[in-house]
Structures are given as structure tokens and as C-alpha cells.
């Protein structure tokens, strides 16, 4: 599609965004390749007494934690959790948001009002507390449930953006023309609306990934997201927080990883957004 190609050309002109993209790609590779890259089993506790809280060494590049587990291995496997949940929830949120936005934008004024006032109400509820409430009541909720919860509480802004775009698009003459040529409702959405919505939805989803990774880490840190012993960056920070001054690598490694990841996703999202802005076209 020529439009996406143009987007890529403008994105490429922004070095910092490209740097963000490189980091995101490396992170994704690291997460995918965790079984190959990890020096040890992330759950193995070879000797909780003799090998606990080892500082970084050739054998343990990021040291070990208080159960003698290899931090590097846990970090790599934790990346799978963080990136996986972040990407899956952001994608799901984008799909729901786009669907509701299209329905509101194309539907009758009544449907539009119902959906958008519903979104207004939902946006007024504090997301973190909603998540805490559900996860506190549902102890040991599986990762799939965490993903759905994060998505279901995160699609509202996307739906507003999409609705505004659809309302503008449906006045576009080429949409009128398509109707005049006999296009049905579904054909209109598929052929004429979705290609125009895709870039904006992609940007929203990208920016959302960083957000969701942070949220999930926060939940895990509070012991509500991914349950130990399975590694996630959030519960790794939790593990290391009591020994922050004696063995800083245990909490610092996941903390830094989190920081780099979120910044990288935000850089990519911002870069995409700038590249999409027609005013930035040279």
C-alpha cells in the first residue's frame, strides 16, 4: 500500500524513532530466543545457600538472586511475559477500540451516543483500581485473563480517535461515491474505511504497548499479575526490593529493562505519529 510505504519513508527520516525501533526489534528477538540465549533455567535454584546473591560474573552475567536463580535468564524469560502481554493486550485493545469506533462513527446517532457516553463513563473510572479489584478477587488469574483485563480497560482512547476519523471519512466524497456504486455497509468498512484507519490505530497500539508493560509490571510488583516463581519484570523487582542496597543487580536489571523497553516503544509510537502528521510532509 502506497500510503504505508510513504509512512515508512517519513518514519525512517527520524533517527531517534529508528533507534527505538531497533531496540524494540532486539528485545523481541531476545524474548523469542530466550531458551537459546539464557545461560540457565530461570526457575532452577542450584544452591540457595552457597550461590545466592552472587554479583555479576562470567558465569552469571547479571548475578543471581536470593534463591540462587540466574538473573539474566529470568530477565530474558521475563521479557517474554512483559512483551507478550504488552503486545497481545495492546493488539486486543486496538481491535476492540477500532470496532467500537467504527460502530459509533457509522451507526445511528443513538448508537453513537450510547457508545461514546459509555466510553466517557469508563474513562472516568480509575483503570489501576479496576484491575486491582478484579485481580485481588480472582487470585491466581492466568496470563490470558490478565491480557483480556488490560485490553478491556484500555481501548477507550482508541475508540474515540477512530470514531472521529470515521465521521470525517464518511463525509468523504469517495465514500459517498462508493455508496452510489452500490457498496454495502461491510464493503465500505473493509475497502474504504479500514485502510485509512490502519495507520492511526497502529500508532495508538504502539504507544499502548509501553503503557501496558508498565501496568502489568506494576500489578506483578504488587503480587497480582504474573505469580512467582514464573519470572516477570514486575515480580523480579519485587524480589530485589528488600536488598536494593546489598545486591542492587537483582532489582536494577529488570528495572532498567523496563525503562529501556517503555522508552523504545514510546519513541516508535511518537515517530509513527509524526510520520503520519500530514503537516510533517516535506
Amino acid at each position, binding site marked *: 500500500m502506497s500510503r504505508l510505504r510513504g509512512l515508512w519513508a517519513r518514519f525512517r527520516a527520524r533517527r531517534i524513532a529508528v533507534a527505538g525501533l531497533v531496540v524494540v526489534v532486539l528485545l523481541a528477538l531476545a524474548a523469542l530466543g530466550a531458551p537459546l540465549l539464557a545461560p540457565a533455567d530461570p526457575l532452577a535454584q542450584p544452591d540457595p545457600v552457597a550461590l545466592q546473591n552472587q554479583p555479576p560474573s562470567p558465569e552469571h552475567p547479571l548475578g543471581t538472586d536470593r534463591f540462587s536463580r540466574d538473573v539474566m535468564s529470568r530477565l530474558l524469560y521475563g521479557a517474554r511475559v512483559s512483551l507478550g502481554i504488552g503486545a497481545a493486550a495492546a493488539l486486543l485493545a486496538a481491535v476492540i477500540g477500532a470496532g467500537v469506533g467504527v460502530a459509533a462513527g457509522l451507526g*445511528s446517532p443513538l448508537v453513537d451516543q450510547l457508545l461514546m457516553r459509555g466510553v466517557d463513563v469508563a474513562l472516568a473510572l480509575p483503570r489501576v483500581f479496576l484491575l486491582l479489584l478484579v485481580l485481588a478477587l480472582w487470585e491466581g488469574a492466568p496470563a490470558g485473563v490478565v491480557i483480556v483485563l488490560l485490553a478491556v480497560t484500555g481501548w477507550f482512547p482508541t475508540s474515540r480517535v477512530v470514531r472521529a476519523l470515521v465521521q470525517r471519512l464518511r463525509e468523504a466524497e*469517495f465514500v459517498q461515491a462508493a455508496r452510489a456504486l452500490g457498496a*454495502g455497509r461491510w464493503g465500505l468498512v473493509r*475497502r474504504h474505511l479500514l485502510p485509512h484507519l490502519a495507520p492511526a490505530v497502529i500508532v495508538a497500539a504502539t504507544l499502548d504497548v509501553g503503557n501496558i508493560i508498565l501496568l502489568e509490571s506494576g500489578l506483578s510488583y504488587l503480587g497480582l499479575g504474573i505469580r512467582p516463581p514464573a519470572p516477570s519484570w514486575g515480580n523480579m523487582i519485587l524480589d530485589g526490593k528488600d536488598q536494593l542496597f546489598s545486591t542492587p543487580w537483582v532489582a536494577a536489571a529488570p528495572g532498567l529493562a523496563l525503562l529501556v523497553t517503555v522508552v523504545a516503544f514510546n519513541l516508535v509510537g511518537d515517530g509513527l505519529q509524526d510520520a503520519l502528521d500530514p503537516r510533517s510532509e516535506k
Partner: protein
Amino acid sequence: MSGPDATPGGPLLEIADLRVTFATGDGVARAVDGVDLVVEAGETVGLVGESGCGKSVTALAVLRLVEHPGHIAHGSRVRFEGRDLLALADRDIRAVRGNHLALIFQEPATALNPVLTIGSQIAEVIRTHQHGSRAEAKRRALEMLRAVGIPDAERRADGYAHQLSGGMRQRVLIAIALACRPHLVIADEPTTALDVTIQAEILELLDGLQRQMGMAVLLITHNLGLVAERTRRVYVMYAGQIVEEAGTEALFAAPLHPYTQGLMAAVPRLDQLRERLAAIPGQVPPATAWPGGCRFHPRCPFAFDRCNAEMPPLLPSGDGRKARCWLVEDEAYRGTGVPAHRDQQGEGGGAP
């Protein structure tokens, strides 16, 4: 040739008492207010009027494309090939749109989807309405591109709208509209956005294709010159109503309605030296507040008491023509275009 009963099978398109209203903040706008219009198979009919007179809304209403807050009033009738389009199910009207009845839009710059290839947009219409494979649709699309005179059709078909000039885009729009060989094409200001030289080319093309395919054309325009050259019959529209209906030659030889006269006086002509063009005084009133009586009376040089009080119907003037003007009953006016002694509002004793 102009009456609804002229052909035994009924005309191709028959619009009767079409009313379209828009609920606006300033009240109800009666954008189209009781339009009757007939197009016979194969003929070219003009619909002329200023911006805002309701001609484009009429076109959209025929295909039921008027969107909220617009509303086609009950009692309106649009018969096309014997079926009432306003009563069809959604599915059935979609099968008519772009298939037997196609619309050519005014703005070639915006009527094409910028992210789809030219070829796929033509193929889309064909596949919407006709069975057949993707390859067959593509082949037909290329055929249409060649038919509308796009050079290097194979390459253009894979290109996008922004790679084409305005004239080329309008050719593509025509290709899309004619892809399913419609029986009637409604062309809404098809050349307004184009250069004058390109306009002529596009109209020649449309003429040629019309002869080839034997379709009828309803040409909607504000350009009287176009109407004079291309149509057989003309409807003149003002303030949501048809105000005059006539054969093109007769209309241009002797316009009956004072509004039509005004329109013609406002067209620059090479064969007459005039200091300045005559403009019709005043402005088209807003559709939320049509004046009472004859809608043209506040701007009419011949208006008299009755015009203010009573809306004239479309009055027949004997030779198959009709005009919505009380003066049609005045024999002297019909002959000369100037009313006999009347008490004129605007002029103090200018009448002979």
C-alpha cells in the same frame, strides 16, 4: 416527448413530487420541494440551476443517498425502469446503484479512494454487481480504462489517483460509472472542476460513450452553455422547485420564466457586445425561509400582486412547455418575453 405518458412502457426515470427536507438548527430546510422530472431511455436531459437550488440533492435522492439529517418526504416517488426506488429494500437499491443507474461525481480529486489502485476501484463495481472471476473483472476494468481514453491502461490500472491529472481522474470516474453499462447516468457537474479545454474533451467522451452504449444522461449543471450544446430537453430549477421545462432549442430561443431569462442574460456571449453582464438582483433565499407566493418574486422584475400572494403551478404554455409563472397566462408575454400592461412593483410607469 415530455409528458410522463409519452411512451407506453413509461419513461426510464420518472420523479414525481420529490421532496427532501433537512432538519437544521435554523428550522426545516426544504431543499427539494415537489420536483417532477422525466428522463426517457437514451435521451440527454439537462437540470440547470444556481448553487443551492437543490439539483445535487435531487440527484442523491434518486439513489436514496440523502444522509441524516436529510429526509425524503413520504409521497415522493422515483420510478426507474418501472420500480419505485424509494420503496425498495436496502439490498435491492444497492443492486441498482452503480449498476443500472450510475452517478458521476463533481470532484474527481476526491471521489476516488486515495489508497486503492485505479484498476481495483473499477473492478470493485463490476464484482459488486456482476458474477464473474477476479480476473474477468480486471480484464473488464482494463477495457473500460481504454474505452475512456486512458493511455497505457495496464500501467495506470496499478497506479493511484494522485498520480493522475484532474482530467484523467474524471475519465476514471466515468469508467467506474459506466463499467456496468448503466441505462441512466446522472452526471452532477461532471466538468466543473476541470479546465475549459479538458471539459470539452470529457463531454465529447461522455457523448461518444452514450451513443455507443445507448444510455440516457441526466446532466446536472449551472452552466447553460453545456446544456445548450448537449441536451434535448431542459429543466430549470430554482429554490427547490422546477420553474421551467422545455425543449432545449425552444428554451434558448425564448425563455419563458423570468428567472431563466435572468440566467441567460447573465451568460457572457461573444456575439453581443455588452458593457456589463446583467446580474439577477438579490440572492437565492436560504432553504429554511423560502418566500411565500412565487419563490422568485422578490427578485423578479415583472412581479405583481398575485406573485406575492399565490405560488404559481407549472403552467403549460401551449407548445409542450411549462413554466412556474403567472405571466404564462399572458399572451403578450408568451410572444415577447415582456409582460403587457401590469402594475409593476419595481418600476413607476415604465410599462408602455
